């Protein structure tokens, strides 16, 4: 089994290095095939491992020592257990699909080889992240995915907005990583090890306050990667990257790393329910907050990004309330349908020549049948309609909120579910239904390559049927995670809740269809609604990016300039130069003494003699005075 573990882990790395070899040469399809093939190998190995783990075993290997000094011992250790194997499956499935898809999507791009190098490197980092058996290894993957995310968001580096977004994403993640690093330090100094098994065994013996702080700092790390408020702005901007990247990194895998961390560290969070409540509340808030921004946005990818953000909020609600397996389940289901949605959006973008505004599309269902079906089904899954994947995972989170008696959270999530359905179908309606507004812009859309659609189909299948794995999954992960069953005990309440939610969501969908499926004009910012305060607030993302710009970025640059020009040059350096100049000036001024005139020198000599004599007299007098 170790062999399969190593194959699953290192196949993407090999693919990445192979593509990197051709990184500077013009496009060669072979890199795409090799990278995809290796990803598929990785997927197969993961499948074998899943089968093995389903049999009740786990694999734990230690590749080699990484850091060892003093009492610190950090190996490159990898573990395939019930949780990580689920993540591995999610990662390898989605990334295989995305790789194959990218062969078509990046077909005309100059950086084709480079793209696959980055993409496979990302998968490798993600695998390290989920498979590591210690916090330091997790951190390697954590930073690794951050790096690849940087490289991929800024993939089209000639675009100013892309590189800016890449740097923003990296730096924001770094802020959170600091929190995570501190969490790791706390764990080390209090437990003496960073291995999961040791830490989780010992964590109960620590004072509660320390555990609380550990939980908080680790969660700060999770907030950055999963783009939780207030570190959420980078995710929407990250949509500057190529769409497969958004599908893989900013929907299915990397952004869920934060959830994975909380799930993985469940023995810690179990001890600190107060932090859990905070996480859940923040998650609920972000779910609503992000959904509200998605309502008005006119950028197809950003809408999906906000939806991702919103779904991450759901996951954190579940994780925060202790329903770790539910969080992980939603993570999995979400990965499938959200990746599908993004890839569909990618098809649309291709068809529309990188046009992102859904108001400029419309009626595309005629030319893009496959994409239309896939995106619609994905949206249905996202909305949580029975029997699609979203129903099983998302409704479960609502139930968790209800069962745990957090009714406010429940209400917020319910509302968000409606909003989700609305904005998802607003998007679908605007893109695929109504008049063919794109004709105004002289665009001739076409369906994507066949094999791209074929590549997407596994995701479609999974988005539809993932819910049916629920029991198998449940039995699998509850070997490791708390096995609480969340079920409303009262039969009547349960049915009212379920059917009520379904009706609410369906009505939201119908409303969206009604409002947008016959849209016939491109909004130009003059309508009454577009000038209302609420719309502007949402349109400008609650002015938060602007706020960050004004309060952090610009003052930091200003302060830096002051630090350099005013403090460093005018104070610190000037002080040094002043001392040097003082000495130099003294020399310059006393230079006249050395005028070469013997007579003057003799006078100075006598003067010195007098001074010395005076000193001798003074000291003698003084000495006598003291001794007497």
């Amino acid at each position, binding site marked *: 089994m170790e062999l399969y573990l190593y194959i699953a882990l290192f196949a993407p790395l090999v693919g990445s290095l192979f593509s990197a070899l051709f990184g500077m040469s013009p496009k060669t399809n072979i890199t795409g095939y090799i990278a995809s093939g290796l990803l598929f190998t990785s997927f197969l190995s993961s499948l074998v491992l899943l089968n093995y783990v389903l049999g009740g075993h786990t694999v734990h290997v230690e590749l080699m020592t990484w850091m060892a000094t003093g009492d610190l011992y950090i190996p490159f250790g990898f573990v395939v257990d019930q949780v990580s194997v689920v993540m591995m499956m999610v990662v390898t499935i989605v990334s295989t699909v995305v790789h194959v898809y990218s062969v078509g999507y990046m077909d005309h791009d100059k950086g084709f080889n480079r793209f696959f190098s980055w993409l496979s490197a990302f998968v490798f980092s993600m695998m390290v992240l989920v498979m590591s058996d210690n916090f330091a290894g997790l951190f390697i993957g954590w930073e690794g995915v951050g790096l690849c995310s940087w490289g991929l968001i800024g993939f089209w580096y000639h675009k100013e907005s892309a590189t800016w977004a890449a740097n923003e994403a990296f730096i924001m993640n770094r802020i959170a990583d600091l929190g995570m690093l501190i969490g790791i330090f706390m764990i080390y100094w209090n437990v003496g090890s960073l291995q999961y098994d040791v830490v989780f065994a010992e964590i109960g013996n620590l004072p509660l306050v320390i555990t609380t702080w550990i939980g908080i700092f680790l969660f700060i790390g999770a907030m950055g990667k999963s783009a939780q408020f207030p570190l959420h702005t980078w995710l929407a901007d990250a949509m500057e990257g190529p769409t497969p990247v958004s599908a893989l990194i900013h929907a299915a895998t990397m952004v869920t790393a934060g959830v994975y961390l909380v799930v993985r560290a469940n023995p810690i969070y179990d001890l600190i329910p107060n932090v859990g409540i905070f996480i859940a509340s923040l998650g609920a808030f972000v779910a609503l907050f992000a959904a509200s921004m998605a309502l008005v946005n006119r950028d197809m990818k950003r809408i999906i990004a906000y939806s991702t953000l919103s779904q991450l909020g759901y996951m954190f609600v579940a994780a925060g309330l202790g329903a770790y397996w539910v969080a992980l389940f939603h993570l999995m289901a979400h990965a499938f349908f959200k990746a599908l949605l993004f890839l569909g959006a990618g098809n649309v973008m291709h068809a529309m020549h990188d046009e992102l505004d859904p108001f400029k599309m419309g009626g595309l269902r005629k030319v893009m049948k496959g994409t239309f079906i896939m995106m619609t089904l994905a949206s249905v899954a996202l909305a949580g309609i029975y029997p699609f994947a979203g129903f099983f995972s998302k409704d479960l989170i609502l139930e968790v909120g209800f069962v745990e008696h957090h009714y406010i959270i429940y209400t917020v999530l319910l509302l968000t579910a409606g909003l989700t359905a609305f904005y998802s179908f607003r998007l679908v309606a605007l893109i695929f239904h109504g008049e063919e507004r794109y004709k105004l812009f002289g665009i001739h859309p076409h369906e994507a390559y066949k094999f791209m659609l074929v590549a997407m189909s596994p995701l479609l299948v999974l988005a539809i049927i993932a819910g049916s794995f629920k029991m198998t999954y449940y039995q699998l992960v509850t070997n490791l995670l708390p096995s609480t069953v969340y079920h409303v005990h009262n039969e009547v309440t349960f049915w009212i809740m379920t059917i009520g939610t379904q009706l609410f969501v369906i009505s939201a969908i119908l409303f969206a269809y009604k409002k947008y499926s016959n849209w016939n004009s491109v909004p130009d910012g003059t309508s009454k609604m577009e000038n209302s305060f609420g719309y502007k607030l949402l349109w400008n993302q609650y002015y938060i990016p602007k706020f960050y710009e004004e309060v952090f970025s610009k003052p930091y640059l200003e302060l830096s300039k002051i630090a350099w020009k005013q403090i460093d040059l005018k104070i610190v350096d000037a002080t040094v130069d002043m001392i040097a100049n003082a000495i130099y000036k003294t020399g310059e001024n006393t230079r006249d003494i050395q005028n070469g005139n013997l007579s003057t020198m003799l006078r100075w000599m*006598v*003067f010195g*003699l*007098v001074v010395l*004599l005076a000193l*001798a*007299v003074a000291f003698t007098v003084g000495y006598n005075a003291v001794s007497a």
Partner: protein
Amino acid sequence: MFEAIAFYLFAVLTIVMFTITVMTSQALYAITAMAAGMIFISAFFFILGADFLGAIQIIVYTGAVMALYAFGMMFFDTTRNVVEKKVNPQIVFVLGVLAAVMVVAIFVAPIISDNIQALYPIDPTIGNSQAVGMVLFTKYLVPFELAAVMLLVAMIGGIIMAGKKMDKSLTLMAEEEIGMMDDSYRAEEGGH
């Protein structure tokens, strides 16, 4: 009593002579006053019992040194007044007086301890010259020889500098000039 009279007499004379030396603008006055002062100083040596030193003082200073100065002065125009630019003359006097006062203060103050012991005590039974000779050729033999060499060097140096081609300085000339000088010298020789 006699000693006191002699001391004060010579002291006054010496001071006067030296003051003239320092103050006069006539080179001749100065050299004459100084020669006189030197002789008066030798009187102190006699009073102090340092007969040999006194003799040396007269011979070397008043004889050799003064003669040298006299010869030296023959190069210059001695009849002319020595014109000197006086810059801040008061500072000169203030400094001089201050230095004197300080030194006097140090000498007068009871700081010369009593426990100084004579390393080479003066034996009253033998004459000064003999005693001086005994110390000079035993303990101070090396310095004495060194002094002899020094005098020799000084003599040679004086001769060289005041001697031939003294209007040219080798140290201040460029290399080519020296080379040229050698050539002309040889040419001169060849001419003979």
